[in-house]
């Protein structure tokens, strides 16, 4: 590293930098850690592909690779959106679901079943359904951002609070409508409201994948700005970040990713909390260049591992989202208690 100094009295750096490089443990390098996670993901994919193949291997591989792709797309959407959301809100025990995303998705589906019946819900063209859900969810979030953050008030906290209130409102409205549903319709609806990653619709998967990849590409030039946002709004502004514009852009990116992946597999945001917090402690750095990919890979491990455990241990006697949300709830409690103790 650099030892040249302009000031004559500033001959310091070598000692401390020397200490840094004299601990050459590979483990300390975020890149090595990330690589290791990548191998774990590849290993899990291999295990998932080749265990218990009932008939033709080619057929099994085709079906299973779709599921794996869906998992990777969802892990990316959930991981990236949660980490970015944490940075924007300066709070690490939130998930974007606090804005009422999940609740809104369930409400949309309930409204469809309520007015058109379960048969039309099941028979509806999945593409139309997906587009409607994505557009309505993105429109909702854009409305919330521009109303509460884009205007004169410009408060993230107010926006979160309104999001919580709206989420509760959506949930009670949903419950009220569901009570008046035909039991059969209700059955169909509640089945559809558990996230399901197996056997996704190919075209929807491709569309969601494209949206998620585009959103990720939009995040890349903002990676270093995201690091600065960790310091909080006042310091970020002092360092020349156009806070309002950057945060608005990030919110849009987050909502597109969430809307697309929720419309693909169902409500699954809660698991972002585990993924993001595991990623922070595993990556060992605040830099988004490392935390974001780490979150994606950990998300993929959770989904793949969860699915394997579900299939092998419980013989599919449950749903993946239930398993993950149970683990997520416990982890959330642990986080809150540990924060309180500190």
């Amino acid at each position, binding site marked *: 590293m650099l030892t040249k100094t302009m000031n004559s009295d500033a001959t310091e750096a070598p000692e401390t930098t020397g200490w*840094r490089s004299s601990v050459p443990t590979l483990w300390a390098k975020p890149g090595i850690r990330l690589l290791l996670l990548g191998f774990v993901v590849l290993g899990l994919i291999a295990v998932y592909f080749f265990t218990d193949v009932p008939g033709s291997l080619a057929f099994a591989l085709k079906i299973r690779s779709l599921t794996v792709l869906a998992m990777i797309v969802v892990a990316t959407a959930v991981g990236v959106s949660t980490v970015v959301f944490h940075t924007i809100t300066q709070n*690490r025990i939130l998930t974007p679901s606090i804005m009422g995303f999940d609740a809104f998705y369930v409400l949309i589906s309930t409204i469809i079943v309520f007015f058109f019946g379960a048969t039309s819900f099941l028979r509806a063209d999945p593409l139309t359904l997906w587009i409607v859900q994505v557009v309505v969810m993105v429109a909702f979030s854009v409305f919330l951002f521009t109303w509460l953050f884009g205007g004169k008030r410009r408060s993230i906290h107010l926006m979160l609070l309104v999001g919580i209130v709206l989420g509760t409102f959506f949930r009670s409205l949903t419950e009220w409508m569901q009570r008046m549903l035909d039991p059969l319709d209700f059955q169909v609806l509640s089945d559809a409201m558990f996230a399901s990653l197996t056997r996704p619709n190919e075209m929807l998967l491709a569309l969601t994948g494209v949206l998620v990849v585009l959103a990720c590409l939009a995040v890349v030039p903002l990676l*270093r*700005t995201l690091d600065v946002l*960790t310091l909080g709004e006042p*310091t970020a502004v002092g360092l*020349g970040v156009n806070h309002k514009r950057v945060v608005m852009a990030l919110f849009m990116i987050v909502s597109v990713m969430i809307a697309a992946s929720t419309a693909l597999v169902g409500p699954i945001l809660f698991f972002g909390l585990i993924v993001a917090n595991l990623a922070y402690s595993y990556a060992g750095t605040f830099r988004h260049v490392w935390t974001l990919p780490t979150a994606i890979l950990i998300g993929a491990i959770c989904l793949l591992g969860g699915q394997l455990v579900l299939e092998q241990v419980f013989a599919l006697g449950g749903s993946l989202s239930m398993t993950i949300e149970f683990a997520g709830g416990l982890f959330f409690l642990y986080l809150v208690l540990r924060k309180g103790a500190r």
Partner: protein
Amino acid sequence: MIVLEGITKRYNGTTVLKDVSIAFGDEGVTALIGPNGAGKSTLFGVVGRLIRADTGTVVVDGMNVETAASSDLARTLAVLRQDNHIAARLTVHDLVEFGRFPHSKGRLTLVDRDHINRAIHYLDLEPFRDRFLDELSGGQRQRAFIAMVLAQDTKYVLLDEPLNNLDLRHMTEIMKLLRRMSDELGKRIIVVLHDINFAATYSDRIVAMRDGEIVADASAHEIMREEVLEAVYDTKVDVHTIDGKPVALYYR
């Protein structure tokens, strides 16, 4: 020069700044004093583009704060706020590195690294370079934040109550440091202080605010008079001369 003209700011009907016009920049160290709620932090917020004034303009070296690019301003003017809570765990080096963001946008060059090393050296932070901020004492933390502002390499440095929660020794250290930054590096420092004796000892100019207005603006000797200070703070202040320097006694 930082030139404020006709700045007015209201919150829900309460006027926090009343048509404030003032220029900073000729003196090395300017102290901003005044009772709580006088509008000092709001004034800093307006200059540091965190708060938008209802009327009036702020021009920093020819750049209008409202319209100029945020990154251009960040290379001219640095602001250190009162409370600096950070959610993530950063080391001192990480924090100081952020000071270079307006220049490098995160891709550090040799020049950037040089600035970082010099700032860390200037604040005697070498032993703590790789320590996390939450492992430091209050004084060390404050120095780390000042090092970040120093690495930002701006002509103007605004500090909002940098002596908060510091003990006697660290308060004196920080004030000496600000004086040095001004004398050796040519920085123009504007600092909000509550201890008027520190203001009198270390600053070239004292600006006193009260109720959103500037009520006094002069050299330390002219401000350190009983009638001036009593008018600013609305409380009894005795000023004595000790070793040829005015000292205010307001403890009784």
